[in-house]
């Protein structure tokens, strides 16, 4: 296996990781489930590509503009839908995600449904890594602050959050906007990695894949999301050898994970230096007994 190929998988994992980190904030820490994140990726992707191609904006700046555009769109969507309960919110986001795609289908300026080839290839391993490191730091710092705690309170118990003075709607908006910005940047990186954009790339199934990654890693665990993104992005590549059984295996694994380990790989735990130390001391005290990270069942 050539380095070029491995690098490709890493870049792709990194791109999805970016989106998954955002979704993790929304789903894992705020308790909102979105099936429309592919839509935000699409907004970011098309905006970024338009910036670099049509307006000659430098790539990094264009990415940020792409993220911003996705965040702005998310604010409009949030304004309309964040009051919906549970599954209806989920479905509304699904509707929006699909609507964004269908609108792009009709924007001939970007090639419409047929797609937009020839986007310059600018996404490299280096800039993906840098963006992700920054994204993780921002996320961790946010979560370990009063603002992050407010989000988690909303996840746990919405009415009680109101009562302790949390502006639930505002915080949901913030969470949605940040996660959309992450997805938007991911979209921009994707555009400049594949060199080709087509609205079809951002179908519902993409949103689902992102959610699967978050859940696979474990809701409310950033390290889980990171592992989830990398494992699940490379899985289909690794499974290419299975040929047409590839997606059969993929589908079966999704079910298998859900029914055997529904709390996800990390089950809400984080890999941190202190946790690793704890783990090591536990392992040593347990003697030779094998132990998984995060312990609990």
């Amino acid at each position, binding site marked *: 296996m050539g380095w070029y190929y491995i690098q490709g998988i890493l870049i792709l994992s990194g791109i999805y990781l970016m989106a998954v980190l955002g979704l993790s904030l929304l789903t894992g820490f705020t308790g909102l489930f979105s099936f429309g994140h592919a839509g935000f990726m699409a907004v970011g992707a098309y905006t970024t590509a338009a910036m670099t191609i049509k307006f000659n904006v430098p790539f990094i700046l264009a990415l940020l503009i792409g993220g911003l555009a996705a965040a702005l769109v998310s604010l409009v969507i949030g304004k309309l839908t964040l009051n919906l309960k549970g599954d209806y919110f989920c479905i509304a986001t699904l509707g929006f995600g699909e609507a964004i795609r269908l609108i792009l289908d009709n924007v001939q300026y970007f090639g419409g449904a047929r797609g937009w080839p020839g986007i310059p290839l600018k996404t490299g391993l280096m800039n993906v890594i840098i963006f992700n490191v920054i994204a993780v*730091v*921002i996320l961790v*710092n*946010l979560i*370990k*602050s*009063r*603002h*992050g*705690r*407010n989000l*988690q*309170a909303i996840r*746990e*118990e919405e*009415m*009680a*959050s*109101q*009562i*302790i*003075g*949390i*502006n*639930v709607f505002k915080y949901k908006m*913030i969470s949605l906007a940040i996660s959309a910005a992450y997805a938007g940047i991911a979209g921009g990186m994707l555009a400049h990695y594949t060199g080709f954009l087509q609205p079809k790339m951002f179908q519902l199934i993409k949103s689902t894949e992102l959610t699967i990654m978050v859940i696979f890693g474990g809701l409310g665990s950033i390290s889980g999301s990171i592992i989830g993104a990398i494992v699940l992005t490379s899985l289909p590549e690794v499974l290419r050898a299975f040929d047409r059984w590839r997606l059969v295996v993929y589908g079966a694994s999704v079910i298998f994970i859900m029914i055997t380990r529904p709390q996800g790989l990390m089950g809400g735990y984080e890999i941190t230096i202190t946790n690793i130390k704890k783990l090591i001391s536990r392992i040593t005290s347990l003697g030779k007994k094998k132990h998984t990270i995060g312990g609990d069942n």
Partner: protein
Amino acid sequence: MSTILALKNVTKQFGGLTAVGDMCFDVKKDSISGLIGPNGAGKTTIFNLITGIYNVTEGEILFEGNRVDGLQPYQIADTGITRTFQNIRLFKKLTTYENILTACHYNTDYSILDAVIRNKKFRTGEKKLHQQVQELLEIMELTDRKDAVASNLPYGLQRRLEIARALALKPKLLLLDEPAAGMNPDETIRLMNLIKEVRDRFNLTVLVIEHHMDLIMGICDKIVVLNFGKKLAEGTTQEIQSNSKVIEAYLGEEDVIC
């Protein structure tokens, strides 16, 4: 003593049902007042109206002289009113410590940007919060359970944690909805003392709903009795205990055992 909370002709209807009708009463600052009445009389509904969870159909609610009806629940919390719930609503998967810490968020004002770059403002703010949590844990005698996940706490402690969480807001008015439900007599008495203590320490005004008459009679300066969404009586504990309408509708003839 001045009036801190006033309900003026407050009505709440659900479809055709008038859950609360033309309700008027005042709560004096620094007092402990009781709200009692038969099941379904509209007590919880009044709490829901005061805290903005339901909108009033008619009438006004004044807090420290300002209208609060029509505000969002979080805005009402801003003005200094908070509550506990009849059906406990803790942040179930968070620990005792985290439950209180979250509720302390008011007492610092660093922004999201401050948090992301971890500047001085953030660090001093956080430090303040953690100190406050420690204090509250001690007062509410929860220190030894601070790392327990809320949903695993025994019922009694869960109720106490709800009160601690409410206190973290440094409220002026605390509404307690059946804080002693599911507690045995002994625990009820301890709770009663705790409420008094907390009131003195934090300069609180308390409005409490209870069906345990020991508690109500033991701590309330004033009692409002509801029946069918209307005010049936209002007065001191003695007045209420001897009020024949109250006895008929709520207390019953014999001496009630908690």
